[in-house]
């Protein structure tokens, strides 16, 4: 069951790499968030403590609902529908993603988490999520795509956090989730400013400061 959820995280990552529509990016990121929330809850189902319950619920609602909602409103506000022309095309992105997943699997076997009794896929999924997030940030030009990339990266770390028995203390996880929420808030404000100042939210225009 847990493996299935982890596979779903991987698949959503691949989907994120393949889509050009901003709205679908946001939805898939939201779906990934929900999957993670469920994953957090299920991973401790047998002896569910209140704090892990809160973390799982918070992850589900923040990552799966609140943040996507904020981003959807943002898309409406800035009227940016598509990732126009990314540095790396979508099919190529997907192929690279697949390759990266193979690499992540290999790396995960090289670096097994000692005494992990949950799933061998946790570390590969973490690494792959981080890779996907980074890849989104590097290869996309649309500011919202980059935000999604960051979220994906954070999701990867979350997988590691809750995917093993040795998760971080409650306050840390909640703090991290809150930080991400505020970060997206800051970003959405920034993107609105950008849209006003640059008449668009592609980062191609943001190359004046250099040298």
């Amino acid at each position, binding site marked *: 069951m847990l493996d299935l959820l982890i596979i779903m995280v991987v698949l959503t990552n691949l989907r994120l790499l393949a889509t050009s529509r901003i709205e679908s990016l946001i939805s898939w990121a939201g779906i990934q968030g929900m999957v993670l929330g469920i994953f957090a809850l299920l991973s401790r189902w047998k002896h569910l403590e209140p704090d892990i319950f809160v973390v799982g619920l918070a992850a589900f609602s923040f990552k799966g609902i609140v943040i996507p909602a904020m981003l959807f409103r943002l898309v409406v506000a800035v009227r940016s529908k598509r990732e126009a022309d990314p540095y790396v095309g979508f099919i190529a992105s997907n192929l690279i993603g697949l390759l990266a997943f193979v690499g992540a699997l290999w790396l995960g076997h090289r*670096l097994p988490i000692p005494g992990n009794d949950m799933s061998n896929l946790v570390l590969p999924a973490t690494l792959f999520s981080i890779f996907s997030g980074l890849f989104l940030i590097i290869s996309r030009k649309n500011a919202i795509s980059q935000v999604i990339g960051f979220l994906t990266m954070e999701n990867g770390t979350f997988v590691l956090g809750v995917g093993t028995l040795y998760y*971080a203390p409650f306050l840390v996880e909640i703090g991290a989730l809150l930080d991400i929420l505020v970060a997206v808030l800051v970003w959405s404000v*920034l993107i609105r400013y950008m849209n006003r100042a640059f008449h668009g939210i592609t980062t191609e225009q943001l190359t004046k400061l250099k040298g």
Partner: protein
Amino acid sequence: MTNESLFGFIIAVPALSGLLGRFAANQTRALGFALSGVFLAALFCLRAIYLVFNENQIFAYSDWIFLDHLSAWHLVVLILVFCQSTLFAIVYFGEEMREKKFSLAQARTFAGLWGPAFSAMALVLISNNLGIMWVGMEATTLLTSFLICIPLSRDSLEATWKYMLICSVGIGFAFLGTMLLRLAAKDLPLDLNQALLWTNLMANTRFLSVPLVKAAFIFALVGYGTKAGLAPMHSWLPDAHSKSPSPVSAIFSGFMLNAALYCIMRFIPITEEATLHSGWALRFLVGFGLFSVVLSAAFVLFQQDIKRFLAYCSVEHLGITVLGMGLGGFGTFAALFHVLNHSLAKSLAFFSAGRLGLAFGSHNIEKMKGSFKISPVWGTGIFAAILVLIGVVPFSLFISEFQVLKAAIDNHQIAVVIIFLTATGIIFAGSLRYALPLGIGEPASGIETVPVKKLDAFIVALPLLILLILGLWMPKTLQVTLSRAAAIVQTAKPIIPHFGPTGGK
């Protein structure tokens, strides 16, 4: 006052002042809130520092919060830089207000974020829990991002965007590093809530899984290193520094970078202990340090914007600090000393650059010629600050650079010595070429002179005085504090650096 309430105040007071400032009635009052919040918190910090010097370590909130010599030392730098910057903010925004360029909305943004930024940085320093430390670090990123674009423009937006994105990615890595460390500590016979505490990790390094600790260190180094502006992760730094208002640039360079470096300093002893002091972690630090110095040497030569130039200078000095850390032994001592010296000098440099920028209406070095004639105070400030930064005697930055050099030579690191000296030599040449016309050139006509004010003179004189005194005389207490702090990073007994006969015999 209990430790709990003391630390509570340190975090809460500035945060509260931010809240008040957010809804202040006018600009002056907003600045007043920021000022009082920071200074009040500074008083509490002083109390905490005093306690540490007496009791060595203080804990609170079931050990989640603690202060030892390393963090107390950084706290000293924090309050110095923040108090100075707050005073300068009053000068700076006061001048902007006079020119009707500082709106109420901007004042509210500033006051609303300034105090909380202090809280976040203080939280980084006082938290024993590495996760909370990370939360604090991420919070500084979020809180300071809007400080950059207080003067809203295309450039400042671009800078903010880059800052947010790059630092968030970096901080994301740092979070992964923290998580990996948590995983490495799985065998620790500890309660869940106690497992990420730095003191506990340090006490049980032999139980840690070495490959995971190594991975954690790498992630943390790259992650926090991004925030600290180590090359090649530094690219946000010149943009953010050059586009933000000068008080903000000052705390960026003067303390935020150090805060990130402080986080790395917490990871160093764990890694070194776990890898049995094989110098595994230190190699990376030396590498990053040297690379930062060399890279900034390249960029320092080709700058037009003074704040951008100063930003690259920060990359250099953070590089020197990291280099000192990496050299270990006495180098750590030197690096910690360098932190203070650099912060004082760099914040002064940003103050002067900012104030002069207002006077000249530009931050272009070419256009800022002859600042002595335009403003004797700030002209002295920028000229002296650049001289201090390039290591001119009798200021203490010379001493700390000397100590780093000594550490390198004593370690028989010939290549390090050569690269370090060459790169700093190039930076010296480049910086001095900017500093001279900036100070003593002939100003273009039609630029108003800046009247001399007492507050201005104080802001310029205080750091210079401290740097001067420390350059000629390094009090025993300071040496003891620094060696204790260095001993924390090195997990060694504090060695008070003295060989040869001591004075007074």
